Every structure is written in structure tokens, then in C-alpha cells.
């Protein structure tokens, strides 16, 4: 599947003299050279066609690599991970849950109380609402019973 890259010969990057240039240029492009060595490489690039060519090729290789499109994970990726964990944990994690499990109890209680308050207010403010006290029909029952002789 893969081809092993032969190790460099001792003291050099390989038998090909171009390899030695590539090693220096690779360090140069990575910003890994001290100032003096950097200046030396720049001098060689400016004056030596072999170095110029190698520099252009290596720069191009790096640019092509860094220009590779960033592959994005599919949109269903997170669900896939959650499903796999759910399956492997025998349902311990990432299970589908009821509303009460997903929303904190305090929030559910507050929403329920607010709902009751709204319904009570609507009933109270309505002219025919069942919570409204009907004064006209309620008053005569008591007053008639204690009427003075």
C-alpha cells in the first residue's frame, strides 16, 4: 500500500545532491534556520540555478499541499457518533429522553405555574368567566333572611 522512503546516506540527505539542497530548503521554508544559515540559503537561491529550481519546486509542493481543500465531515456526523456510543454503552449514554429528562424540573414547574396564572387571569377578566363573583345573584340570599320585622 505504501512505499518506504529509503533513509538518507550518513552525513547527507541522500545520494542525489538535489536532496541535500532540498533538506536545507525545507528547513529554510519552515523557518528553522538560524540567521546566518538563512542568509546563506538566500544567497544560494539568488545565485545558483539548481537552488532556484529546487526552491521553486519545493515552494510549489508546499503550496499545493496547503491548498488542498479542507474536507468537511457530513452533517449527520455528530448523530452518528451519538448513536454508536448509545449502542456500545447498551443504552447508558445518548438515549432518547422524555421532556422531563431533557428540561430541568424547575423550568417545567415555572412554565406550568405561568400557564395556570394566564388561564386564571383570562377567566377572571372575562365578563362570563367562571371565577368572577356574581354580586347581584349572591347578595339577596343572605340579606332576605335577616330582614327586620
Amino acid at each position, binding site marked *: 500500500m505504501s512505499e518506504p522512503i529509503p533513509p538518507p546516506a550518513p552525513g547527507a540527505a541522500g545520494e542525489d545532491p538535489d536532496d541535500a539542497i532540498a533538506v536545507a530548503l525545507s528547513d529554510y521554508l519552515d523557518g528553522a534556520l538560524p540567521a546566518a544559515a538563512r542568509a546563506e540559503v538566500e544567497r544560494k537561491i539568488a545565485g545558483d540555478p539548481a537552488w532556484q529550481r529546487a526552491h521553486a*519546486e519545493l515552494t510549489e509542493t508546499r503550496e499545493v499541499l496547503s491548498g488542498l481543500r479542507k474536507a468537511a465531515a457530513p452533517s449527520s456526523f455528530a448523530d452518528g457518533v451519538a448513536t454508536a456510543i448509545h449502542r456500545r454503552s447498551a443504552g447508558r449514554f445518548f438515549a432518547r429522553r422524555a421532556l422531563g429528562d431533557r428540561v430541568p424540573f424547575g423550568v417545567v414547574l415555572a412554565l406550568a405555574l405561568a400557564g395556570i396564572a394566564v388561564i386564571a387571569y383570562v377567566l377572571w377578566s372575562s365578563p362570563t368567566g367562571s371565577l368572577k363573583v356574581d354580586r347581584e345573584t349572591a347578595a339577596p340570599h343572605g340579606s332576605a333572611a335577616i330582614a327586620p320585622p
Partner: protein
Amino acid sequence: MSELERTLLRRLRDRDERAFRELIESHRDRVYNLTYRMLGSRSEAEDLAQEVFITVFKTIETFREESKFSTWLYRVTVNHCKNRIKYLARRHDRERDELDETSRETNGAAGAPRRHVPPDRALEGAQLEQLLQDAIAKLDDDHRVVVVLRDVEDLSIEEICEITGLPDGTVKSRLHRARLALRKRLQRHV
């Protein structure tokens, strides 16, 4: 490490599923891109990236905060990639042996069909990307890791040393040789 990251880690250690989803959302493309460039197949990359996050979920307690979380995540990803490459290579060899066996039995000739190499000409876009992906895939995994982390993911040499656990000199020499191999391979086509 930022306070936000610390909080997220604390929630992850508490097995907070919502925190885990947040983690996946913020790192999934980075992990997927690395697995894709390492393996060269979208389906293998997706499967492996999922395995990476499952490992993170299972082993988050082992993250000691001695490095950045992203470095640790890259380390987990790289280890998974190397294992998968070895597994795929073994499977490939086995399948090729079986194919050779079948070939010999049916045709009396051995060997899988060779991939057609496009003629020398200027390559662009998808063609160049495919060519490059093939060239990366032909590197051995030790060299592939460093060149993908450095030149595709744009990580520093120091970060690559932390991720791979290799000394500075080894990372640099592998990087030189990988670039050289890629350059030579691309020279034949571009």
C-alpha cells in the same frame, strides 16, 4: 488553556452529553480532514473520525491538561490513523493474495490491473488534488503523518513533536524526505 475550554472539559468528565456534542461540532471537521488526508477514502475517514470521538468520550479522564486539548485530540487521531493504515494494508495484502490466486486459477496469469497514469500535462483542480492524494497515500505512514500535519494542517514543528512524541530532528528529517518524495512524484505529472 482558556476558561471556556476548562469548563467544557469538566462537563465532558461529568459525561455531559450536550458538552460532548459541542466538542464534536467544534472539532469534527479538523479530525475528519486529517483522517481523510491520511486514509484517502471518505467512508474510511468518516468511520475513523467517529472512532476518534468515541475514544475521546471513553478516555477523557486520561487527558491530564499537560498539553492543549487539540494536541491531545490530534494524538488520538494520529494513533487511530496509523492503526487503521496497518489494518487496511494487511487487508489489502490478503485481498490481493486472494485475487492473485483467483487470477492464476482462471486465466493462468497473476497481477491486479495497474492504475492508469494520466499523460504528462498541466493538471488542475480535482485532478491535481487526486494526484496529490495518491502521492500522499504512497508515503509510508510515518512520513505521511508529519507532512499532513505540517503542510496540510499547518501545525508547527513543536506541535508535531508533541503529537507524535518524536524528537525535533526526527520530525524534520521525515518532513524533508516526505516533501522530497512528493516533489519527485509530482514532477512526473505536473
